[in-house]
């Protein structure tokens, strides 16, 4: 039997909006791909580009960074910093030979469980089409 390829995704979710949004997906029993692993951070602004690169180096096929919607950041503006930071990093990823589509930045509020599950579904589908991220294994 052919084993269907399931991409490994790391999700950095801010504590106040997106982590609670993912909780809401759970409470509402909306299932999504099991290979998504969530790491809680205080704010999307805490996510250092090095942490993202570390994920790829360690075998992740995709990285999702999710914070509060623009204007709703619990810390006022951390998500704006994240947005700028990862717009830059995405370009840099291409340069490294990692498809920039493997890094996504999304906004999910605490009430958007459904939206979180939908984002995961579309991201994993896209990653499955890209196939395993082999290139970056040679990074480290």
């Amino acid at each position, binding site marked *: 039997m052919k084993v269907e390829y399931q991409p490994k995704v790391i999700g950095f979710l801010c504590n106040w909006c997106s982590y609670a949004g993912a909780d809401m997906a759970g409470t509402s029993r909306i299932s999504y791909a099991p290979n998504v*692993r969530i*790491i809680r*951070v*205080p704010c999307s602004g805490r996510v250092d580009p090095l942490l993202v690169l570390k994920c790829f180096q360690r075998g992740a096929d995709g990285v999702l960074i999710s914070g509060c919607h623009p204007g*709703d950041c619990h*810390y006022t503006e*951390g998500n704006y910093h994240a947005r700028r930071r990862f717009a830059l990093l995405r370009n840099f990823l291409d340069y490294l030979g990692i498809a920039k589509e493997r890094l996504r930045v999304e906004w999910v509020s605490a009430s958007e469980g459904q939206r979180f599950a939908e984002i995961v579904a579309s991201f994993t589908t896209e990653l499955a089409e890209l196939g395993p991220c082999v290139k970056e294994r040679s990074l480290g």
Partner: protein
Amino acid sequence: MEEVRIGVYICHCGSNIAGTVDVAQVSQYAGTLDSVVIARDYKFMCSEPGQEMIGRDIKELGLNRVIVASCSPHMHEPTFRRVCEEAGLNRYSFQMANIREHCSWVTEDHEKATEKAQALVQAAVRRVFYHEPLEIREVPVNSNTLIVGGGIAGIQAALEIADSYHKVYLVEREPSIGGHMIQLDKTFPTLDCSACILTPKMSQVGSHPYIELLSYSEVEEVSGYVGSFKAKIRKKARYVDEEKCTGCGLCQEKCPWKVTSEFDMGLGQRKVIYTPFPQAVPNVPVIDRQNCAYFQKGKCRACEKFCEAGAIDFEQEDKLVEVEVGNIIVATGFQTFDPSIATQYGYGKFDNVITGLQFERLCNATGPTGGNIQLKDGSIPRSVALVHCIGSRDENYHDYCSRVCCMYALKHSHLIKEKTNSMVYQIFTDIRCFGKDYEDFYQRLVKEGVNFVRGKVQQVTSANGKEADQGRLIITAEDPDNSKVTQVPADMVVLCAAIESQQDANEVAHILSISRKADGFFLERHPKLDPVATMTEGIYVVGCCQGPKDIPDTVSQASAAAARVLALISKGKVEIEAATSIIDEEKCSGCRICEFLCPYGAISFIEDKEVCRVNEALCKGCGTCAAACPSGAITSKHFTTEQIMAEIEGVLV
């Protein structure tokens, strides 16, 4: 460094986790991981025996790190942190692995779920290895409270707090407190006169020694955190000196200019210098600058001539007031759906199509008709139709149910029956009488001879087909079950327009750093167990700004928020974030990137050392600075790079 000794506890959560995840296998797996001294699984870790188990193990096995793999940390992190503290550990020795909300509840395949739970436990084990004890800091709680919004919610909360001798700043943007409740004629199901039950509370607010009422004012800026917030409030110019005004009302009588009254929902008129209604608190009028002849054309000043107290002050300007408070209660209320958007209902086209709130004014003794239910031409309607669910339970506008419309439509029906001989039709999709004694009220109305017609209204048209005709109207409704179409003739149509979030709810949310749900209402901390607090400590939401609700529910929620505030005041101190950032001055290059990123101004540059330093009292621990520091000199405590890296490695094993 002391030896790391980790205890791992896998919760079954009844069948919530164990029904999907092989908890025994996860526990066995955890036992094989580095530094794990003990791994157990148990039916309910949050139960008393579960908590005792952890406490006992900490003492007997000398554990210095604890991991519980169970629900979301938003649920039980405080519980298990306390268990650790009671057993003598620092609360930051604890880590939670979320294998319920993020695993068992979202994964169908049992094998995959177990694999995921193992990865999450592995990550927690690796992470907790790098945990360090953090110092718990406490700050005093300012005993003043800011309440935003002076409707029944804000009034109730203000009185509860002020009655226990604690100062309240009550901010209301309109010239008087009272909110929507003071516009209502009678209230369901008791038929209490709304003003009769509200005005005693309003006057109590007005004269309370512990309440400072800031009417005709708006909150512009809020900074700080639980225990010590600072708020900037704009007191708009009334052009009437509150100190001098005696509230005699002569100015209103003498003012020669009339405009449409907002309070009467456009059905009546008011003067340009006005109090919105006779029982206004404070009883101090406001000059409506936009419509004032003196302000617009430079002539008139009639009010000034007749004011014996010399209270009129055309030179008055907006004033900015700054207050310091420990807690904030948000009670900003609602607005009603504008039915003119949905043109099929004929609102704005036919004179005798009005909203539920307009009907309240029509029915009220202080309203434009002195309480007579009459058509635009002054005649008594032969039949009145109350149309439910206008803009609510409607996929084109709002999906939610506005909760109060069924009941007030019944109440309106009773009043129509009482005051006129009209036929009354209720055109409804479902009748929802959920509250105490509400069902009895419904049965009473059935007996009173109200006609109930099931159907979603498709359109309201003129009986003779002419657009401009202001006579008899025809309501066409379709039964949602069998698509049967019914036509009901009526002289007056009352539209039960949805309760919706205030137009500027988004601005308010930004000012206060609170969130809104997709439907626009403010988001509470937990929909069932914490429907009063928000994700921002020290800020509470009450009344219809949190979601549509009736008066009893609003009052309960307001009292609950007041109790929460009083609890914090009585405790006198509050813990603040211990997971702040710290800068290693040896590594800092003094580039000052962090200083400009910090949203709290918590980072300052030390000139003589040419390094940056964090003021921990101001730092909230967002970690943005740590992510941006090019020299890696900044550590975001409890979310250190080492800890997150270890977690990444753990989940990817």
